[in-house]
């Protein structure tokens, strides 16, 4: 059975509908990436999956007892809250010190064990977040723009680690990203979101889909394409949209 089954959900914030009739399934061991411009509802979709946003319509079903490893987009540790990396690692799970050390070693940051969370650099922080998410052997990893604030090398290393984790543990991955060129190669399936599912499929299929190109441009050479996007477009017509893509 699927780990996550999202059926035709709509999510509203007040009068503002951010997701319309979105469906999504993640099977064991799959790496699924959600791409889309700012304000396309990517984060809302992930929030609906974990139960942080209640859908106005539709249904979200998780496999009973699903173990989720969640890596938030930003985790702000307030200056007033003292917490060491070691303590943070066993925030939600009972973990013995040995497992904790091992997890940090696997994440490449064993020396951080006794450090304060509020003193870590962006890259160290992301690695600790990932190590914590993996500590309870999750069946699925959820990543919300997990490489924000990392440089290109840092985020490439981060995604490489995700692939290794999937290879070693067989856990599924559902992630949001705007770094298309990096993510594409690592994903089994890509979902292009813009308030609704614009297109979906293997990276190659999505990359050549007109809907995707309309949103992101043709993006040659792996560089991110700049794009202008019309957010108020209607969907009672066939694609392609009348988007303007800049080089």
């Amino acid at each position, binding site marked *: 059975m699927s780990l996550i089954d999202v059926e035709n959900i709509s999510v509203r914030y007040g009068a503002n509908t951010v997701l319309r009739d979105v469906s999504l399934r993640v099977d064991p061991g799959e790496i699924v990436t959600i791409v889309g411009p700012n304000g396309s509802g990517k984060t809302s979709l*992930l*929030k609906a999956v*974990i*139960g*942080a946003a209640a859908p106005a319509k539709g249904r979200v079903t998780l496999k009973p007892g699903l173990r*989720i490893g*969640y890596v*938030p987009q930003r*985790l*702000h*540790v*307030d200056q*007033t*809250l*003292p*917490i*060491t990396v070691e*303590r943070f690692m066993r*925030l*939600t799970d009972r973990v013995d010190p040995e497992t904790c050390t091992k997890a940090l070693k696997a994440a490449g940051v064993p020396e951080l064990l006794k450090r*304060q969370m509020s003193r870590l650099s962006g890259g160290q922080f992301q690695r600790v977040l990932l190590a914590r998410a993996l500590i309870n052997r999750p069946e699925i990893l*959820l990543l*919300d723009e997990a490489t924000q604030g990392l440089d290109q090398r840092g985020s490439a290393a981060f995604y490489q680690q995700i692939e290794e984790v999937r290879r070693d543990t067989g856990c599924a991955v559902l992630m949001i990203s705007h770094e298309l060129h990096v993510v594409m190669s690592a994903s089994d399936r890509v979902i292009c979101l813009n308030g609704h599912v614009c297109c979906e499929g293997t990276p190659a299929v999505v990359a050549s889909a007109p809907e995707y190109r309309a949103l992101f441009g043709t993006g040659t050479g792996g560089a991110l394409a700049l794009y202008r996007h019309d957010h108020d477009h209607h969907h009672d017509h066939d694609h392609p949209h009348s988007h303007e893509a800049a080089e």
Partner: protein
Amino acid sequence: MFDDFMTRATLAGVGVAFAAAPLGCFVVWRRMAYFGDATAHAAILGVALSLALQMSIFVGAVAVALIMALTVTLLTGRGYAMDTLLGVLAHSALAFGLVAVSFLSGIRIDLMAYLFGDILAVSRTDLMVIWGGAALVVALIAWRWSALLTATLNEELAYASGIDPKREQLILTLALAITVAVAIKVVGVLLIAAMLIIPAAAARSFARTPEAMALIAAIIGGFSAIAGLRAAYVFDTPAGPSIVCVAALLFAALSAVNWRNRGDA
């Protein structure tokens, strides 16, 4: 040993300090200082209602503090910022409470006792209520500790771990209402927030983990209660404010020590 009023006062002060320490840490971490203060001010309306209805002041204060805190939580995000709502509700409740007290002509009440505490008049029954309430607060926070901490750090992380941050917020609100009610007799409604915030703030720079911070805050709060009462006895000063003064001096001294140490490093 409970026959001596100083012993009872000391035990009452230490009891409140123990409950206020872990709760105060969350108040500091979640930036709820004004929320705590406002809830405490609203409790004076509960006191007035209890006196008018001739029921337990503890029950009345818990009820009004809880209603006040829940109303603010419910209304936040519906057109008003939280601090605006707190300002409106807390001060209205305080004003209505003070006016309501003035109507109670049949009973002579010393309003100062509720505004600034009357710890030297703590009876055996009061002491039982204070320790019972304090134990309840400590047990509640200890039980939910890990969930409260996760929800404080990141709401999405909490949801993903099967924790409902809204529920944890309610538990904190309940703990706050109980703490306010048991602390009225000790430091009074105007100074309760000080007992929550000052020990926790003073403990911050000496703690490496959240648990250590709560523990150090409890020690600082407990010491402030004992030393403050002693000072009030020796210098013949009001007891509740004296306790807060000691806590504030400790905060200043510890901050200075920490600042110097950091300068050396």
